[in-house]
């Protein structure tokens, strides 16, 4: 069952709203940060893997509805990323800014890889360019946005973790 207190819900809602409001101002959208995915990763840091998988499935369905090229591929990818993020954060990672940035970077790149694999775009040279150039750049901007969000909302998220 998803557990969400109002502070974490507020942070996630801000990220989701910013995703839609800032998108027209982000220039080349191939490298623009994905704030929907960032909301999932921020949630996954503090959630149980099962809850993060459910949240990933919901966000994935939303992403699929927005870009219905391969419906279901986003849900599959976000479910895996949500589960692995929550599990991996608990098992492997210590608390620090560089580690959190790397966590956001890896999550974004892995999501892109899974979406392309699940969408059967493997036989295309576009995939190589996407994974070698655009996805790392997008992962980088998402990591920067994630670190900024953690710094900005540190107090809310720390209080929630202590609780």
């Amino acid at each position, binding site marked *: 069952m998803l557990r969400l207190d109002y502070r974490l819900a507020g942070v996630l809602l801000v990220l989701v709203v910013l995703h839609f409001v800032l998108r027209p101002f982000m220039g080349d959208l191939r490298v623009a940060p994905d704030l929907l995915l960032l909301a999932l990763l921020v949630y996954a*840091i503090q959630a149980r893997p099962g809850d993060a998988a459910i949240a990933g499935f919901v966000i994935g369905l939303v992403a699929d509805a927005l870009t219905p090229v391969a419906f279901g591929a986003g849900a599959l990818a976000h479910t895996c990323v949500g589960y692995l993020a929550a599990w991996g954060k608990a098992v492997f990672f210590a608390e620090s800014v560089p580690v959190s940035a790397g966590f956001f970077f890896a999550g974004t790149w892995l999501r892109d890889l899974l979406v392309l694999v699940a969408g059967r775009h493997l036989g295309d040279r576009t995939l190589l*360019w996407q994974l070698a150039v655009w996805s790392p750049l997008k992962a980088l901007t998402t990591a920067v946005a994630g670190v900024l969000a953690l710094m900005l909302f540190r107090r809310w998220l720390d209080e929630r973790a202590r609780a």
Partner: protein
Amino acid sequence: MTPAPDTFASRRDTLAFVICLLLAFTARVAPPTAQSAASDAIVHTVLAPFLYLQEQVEVIRASRSRYLATVGLRDSVLARAMAVEGLELENEQLRRQLELSRRLNVRHVSAEVLQQALPTAGFMARLSAGRDDGVRPGSPVITPQGLFGVVQSVSSGQSVALLWTHGDFRVSAMTLDGSVFGIVAPRGGGGPNTMLLELRGVPYQQEVPVETMIYTSGLGGTSGVYPRGIPIGTIVGVGEEQEGWSRTYVARAAVAPASVSHVVVLTGPALDVQQAFAETPSGP
């Protein structure tokens, strides 16, 4: 920030993960009609306020950043429009002499491109105009630079366009003088900054020089007909050759989908080529 203490995976977590994976897999292999229905349901319920917000922000951004460009464009269009009346009259007279029917009118509606974040967003785009605006499946989508794609599905206030980058996209093309015809399809990723198309099926004896612009021919289409004369791209070289039979030319697309935020959807009735070339009853 400290992770919650109970974040290691339990049996319940694994079960939730597996159920979500199964649901996602079911969504992936569901029939296209069910996928489309689910997609429309999500877009028109949960996402409706967010997409409305994005559309409004897009309109505000566009109105600020494009004001000067639009004024310049308006002035140049105004200068050209002065000659249009005479050309229309001349065209009418020539058509009458050649016993051709009237030129068909093309209606259009403006739409914002609601850009999204998935890596597959370069293949399809959600547009802010739908059935209520007269958009229907098969409507061509264009930008001031040229052909952007074709509408694949519509709902009440939005539509989804298949972009020229999608593997299923095809359009009948020609050179400006109409001497060379072929079918244009995407060539795949040639690099991070290239947007390549293929002009297929050009007879071997017909050569198309580099830098030649190619346009829609007005023939064929996904479920309608693209009007003749929309720029598609520029020839940059020869791709493959079938010795003695045909050549495939490589072309750079006129429109870069990633940079497009505003499009025009042509909503007129499907152009009937047969009707366009039908003879009118000759006068006395």
